[in-house]
């Protein structure tokens, strides 16, 4: 019994939150629709995709995505259609532009800089250290005499 409940619980996660029942001609179109509604962002409730959101605008966008997919539009075409209306904001994958490039570049730059810093610092400091220590030791030895 417990196992049955557990499996049901796990399975219930797989059921998609979209309550609208759309019918597709091919399974591939269905696939496209599902990925698109996952990737497109609801302009009203900003941290949800249009598959999850229950806002009216999300309903309308799902309907639009459905009609566009039924018309045989490709994934990219639908994304562009939405971008023309709602901007880059509407897609969860930001395009690489000069302004967004830094999202990827800054971490890499930081790691490289830190690495250079560590390597560079170790070499100089140890050599100088040893030389200084030797000089100090020599001076102490001289004094002993």
């Amino acid at each position, binding site marked *: 019994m417990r196992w049955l409940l557990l499996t049901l619980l796990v399975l219930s996660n797989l059921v998609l939150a979209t309550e609208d029942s759309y019918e597709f001609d091919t399974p591939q179109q269905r696939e496209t629709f599902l990925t698109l509604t996952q990737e497109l962002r609801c302009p009203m409730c900003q941290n949800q995709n249009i598959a999850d959101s229950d806002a009216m605008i999300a309903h309308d966008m799902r309907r639009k995505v459905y009609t566009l997919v039924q018309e045989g539009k490709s994934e990219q075409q639908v994304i562009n259609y939405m971008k023309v*209306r709602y*901007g880059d904001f509407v897609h969860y994958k930001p395009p690489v532009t000069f302004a967004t490039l830094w999202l990827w570049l800054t971490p890499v730059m930081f790691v490289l800089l830190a690495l250079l810093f560590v390597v560079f610092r170790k070499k100089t400091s140890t050599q100088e250290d040893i030389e200084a220590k030797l000089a100090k030791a020599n001076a102490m030895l001289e004094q002993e005499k």
Partner: protein
Amino acid sequence: MKKSALLVIPLALFCVLIVFLFQGLFSDPRTLDSQAKDNPVPSFELPDLMTPTRLYTPDVFRGEVTILNVWGVWCVTCAVELPFLTHLKEAEQVRFVGLYFDQDLDPDFGTKTLSRVQQEVISMLGRFGNPYQFNIFDVYRDTSLDLGVTGAPEHFLIDANGVIRMHHVGDINERVWANKIKPLYDVLLQEKNKPLAESQGGEL
């Protein structure tokens, strides 16, 4: 020399970070860059809300500066701004056109009859004032989608050539009108009158 650089560089980076994060405190994540701005009104052919046999196209925006107001009876803020819009229409002869869309009217199921929608609109405009020259009925909410509308109320300031010059999300109140919309509205009125005066001058 080297030691001062070690102090100054992290400090400068820290300051940049502080400024960046500080700005974030006051930025509104809800403001989106309107894609409709500086573009002509997208093409549509939609019925009048009251007399559905009458069809409108973007040509209704030609020749006059218009504020296209996206609204619905279900929208509370719309009811709040209606009296002020009516005042603007009466005091400054602002031309308001409504783009009406209904939230409860699911185009796929047809849950609500048109006459019911009309009744609701008439009673709401009777209570709060009617600023609209006419209302375009966006039956399938397609045109709203084309305009990048995310809710209601939203306003599009359209010049006499039918080009959207401002997209204002939210209501119009006295402050918004005076600070944000009126300045551009006046410019558009001037633009509208200028080419007319020039062409008349040419004829003479």
